């Protein structure tokens, strides 16, 4: 269990939040032009990294806003939290 620092509400218990999976997966700009492989890539394929990973989280039982997180999945340590729409600070 960990404490998450919601960029809108401050530090709250993890149980108030919902994980939204890998971040920065862009919806295809021209969906009609995608073939099946490209759709599979967008819909299903995930990095599922062991280590530092970009994620989306939602303060589901709080302000209900989405934000991004940089987290180490090997030990659950949160490295960085930044708002939705902001460019990821580390590429």
């Amino acid at each position, binding site marked *: *269990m960990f404490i998450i620092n919601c960029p809108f509400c401050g530090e709250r218990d*993890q*149980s108030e939040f*919902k*994980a939204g*999976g*890998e971040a920065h997966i862009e919806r295809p700009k021209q969906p009609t032009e995608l073939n*099946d*492989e490209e*759709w*599979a*890539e967008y*819909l*299903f*394929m*995930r*990095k*599922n*990294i*062991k280590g530092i*990973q970009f*994620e989306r*989280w939602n303060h589901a039982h709080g302000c209900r806003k989405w934000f991004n997180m940089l987290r180490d*999945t*090997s*030990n*659950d340590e949160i490295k960085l939290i930044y708002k939705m729409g902001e460019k990821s600070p580390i590429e």
Partner: protein
Amino acid sequence: MKNKYSIFSLIKNAFSYHENWQKAWKDPAPKKEYDAVIVGGGGHGLATAYYLAKKHNMINIAVVEKNWIGGGNTGRNTTIIRSNYLWDASAGLYDHALKIWEGLSQELNYNIMFSQRGVMNLAHNLQDVRDLKRRTHANRLNGIDAYYLSTEEVKKFCPIINTSSNIRYPVLGGTLQKRAGTARHDAVAWGYARGADEMGVDIIQNCEVKGIKRNGDEVEGLETTKGFIKTKKIGVVAAGHSSVLANMAGLRLPLESKPLQALVSEPVKPIIDTVVMSNAVHAYVSQSDKGELVIGAGTDDYISYSQKGSHQIVEGTLNAILELYPIFSRMRMLRQWGGIVDICPDASPILSKTSIKGLYFNCGWGTGGFKATPGSGDLFAHTIANDEPHKLNAAFNLNRFVSGDLVDEHGAAAVAH
């Protein structure tokens, strides 16, 4: 040649204070080259090696395991075995496994303590009732034993369940698969290891794979902590770490690895002689032969490889257990742990060839891989040996995420994922 385990060998070894038992498997150093290497020495990996040797005559093979065999999810699950899945493809796959379970102790000459004590799934709302009835019919059409039980029949089968209509999630009915049950998880890994070792398979422990070497679009071998191992066929059976291995080979998988928790209580006298699973409130309970209640909780929703999980998940499961079984209210929990489960978008496994020649993946079992161990090993061995899937695992290919031909077992599999 291995000594056969029997009552006579037990008596004979008793005279030497059980100090002279033969080693169940050797501890060899890796050879330079193998015909095939299985990555992951859990139940599925060891079963794969066993059937490769036994049914496909592939003796020059190895299993590499980064820790000790059976130390991952094989030793972390709640040992439930059943085959009451909704879809035809899943029913075929899991019932194939169940049929092998039924004769496995004899085949391996290793007591895996397979116990067909029945698995009951509870319904707590009208939609559960409809889903479970539908699944019962589907199971019967596939030749799988399934019964629908009324609330009274649930109470009769497992008298300690609180069937009062005044609880938050009342028991409205349930299903029962009588051939289902449990087995001793460690023994499954050890039995397969012993069997594979006897046929000449090298089981290499404390050997972590660090890289998968490719030559164009075919595999050449594995970089490991015990040096380079040359091979033309690699079967990856790494459960929660499948994506890590896939990334080494430059392959993309549709998996997310998440913590799944379980816990056991202090041992008590026999009180529950079956397995009861409840999807809606997410609580599974059975009792081990030692007397501990074995309780399965739910998965966390975030990706993690930490083999821990959130406290609120355990708390929620125990709340549900206490409402359904008030008799357990003063029991103390002894141990709690987490395992990392690799979950597919359709909650069905992948037993498949890949776009890379000689690279095979057996993964995506999510929260329910243990029950499939023998079938998974058998079918994956077939896939590796023939470079083609068996008809029972053809539907569980990696290409289904492109074609859209998913085997959607979310919820339908009688368990919430």
